[in-house]
């Protein structure tokens, strides 16, 4: 996709870029839209956002 031009999308991508540059890798997870109403910076943020329990997280990444 081409870059989002919404205020929310641009702000969130600025944060993602800053975090990635700190990491030196594409580590931050940028998901947004219908399923992910806000930009979330890590997989853990995504899981927490949707209330996935800690016990389920292990399973989801195996």
């Amino acid at each position, binding site marked *: 996709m*081409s870059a989002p031009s919404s205020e929310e999308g641009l702000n969130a*991508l600025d944060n993602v*870029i800053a975090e990635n540059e700190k990491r030196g890798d*594409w580590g931050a997870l940028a998901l947004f839209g219908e399923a992910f109403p806000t930009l979330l910076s890590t997989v853990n943020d995504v899981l927490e956002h949707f209330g996935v329990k800690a016990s389920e997280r292990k399973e989801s990444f195996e």
Partner: protein
Amino acid sequence: MILGENQQFASPGEALIHFGVKGMRWGVRKEKDPSFGEPYSSENGNGHGSKKFELKDQTQLRASNTQGFIDVRPKSGFSSPRVQKNHDELVSSLQALSKEYPNLANLKVEVVPMSKTPEMKKFYDHGSAAALAPGKSGEIRLGYHDKMSKLPRERRLMRLQPGLAHEGFLGNHEMGHALAVAGGVFPPGFSAENGSIRQKVKYVRERDRLHREVLQKHGFTFHELSKISNYAATRPEEALAEVAGYYFTPSVRSHLTPEQQRKAKSLFDDLGGKQ
């Protein structure tokens, strides 16, 4: 029958019996099914029977299939020159690069207005000028934003993705994603789109991994790609698409170093199935 390495054939016809389908003509691609909606046929609601993929307001849309892909436009015409540009860049890049890359030419493609395409709602809401959504295996939708009169927040957007200021870049960026689908590093999205949050997260991680691997295979690092544009620093799939944008757009190709151009050629030849 097992063929020896240096086996000779008496004629091209004999070779075809071994390697091809009798009656096949080299260089002639099988014609695609001309019915509207391959992959999203009207028989199943233009969405594989899934509401999440079913085009909305179909009576307001016109579809043509004369160019090897399905081109869906509003019957009332494009609402602004910017919308026409979003659409036309996708179409011209698709046509040009399909001639060059067999894997791209073999994809089933629909060019669709985002506002009518449920799985593109997130891109539409966030004001992306164009986007790609993978469907089932070998299928993609290329969406154009069909409700903007200009690129919103243009100055700020150009700092993020400066290539957008150049003719052809938008379409070529999206062809980077299309080549990633064609080369198998951008997985089919139909199941994940219809799946749970957990499946969606797994899907993104897998897409991420495959893109990283192919970029590494062709010698690209995060460090160098993050210097190509800020947008390339966001995700590996966007980094690949940004390389495509610069590599395939003649006016900005020199933004890539000669070494990066060599790596880009190798990457896209690999994904596109070009020998």
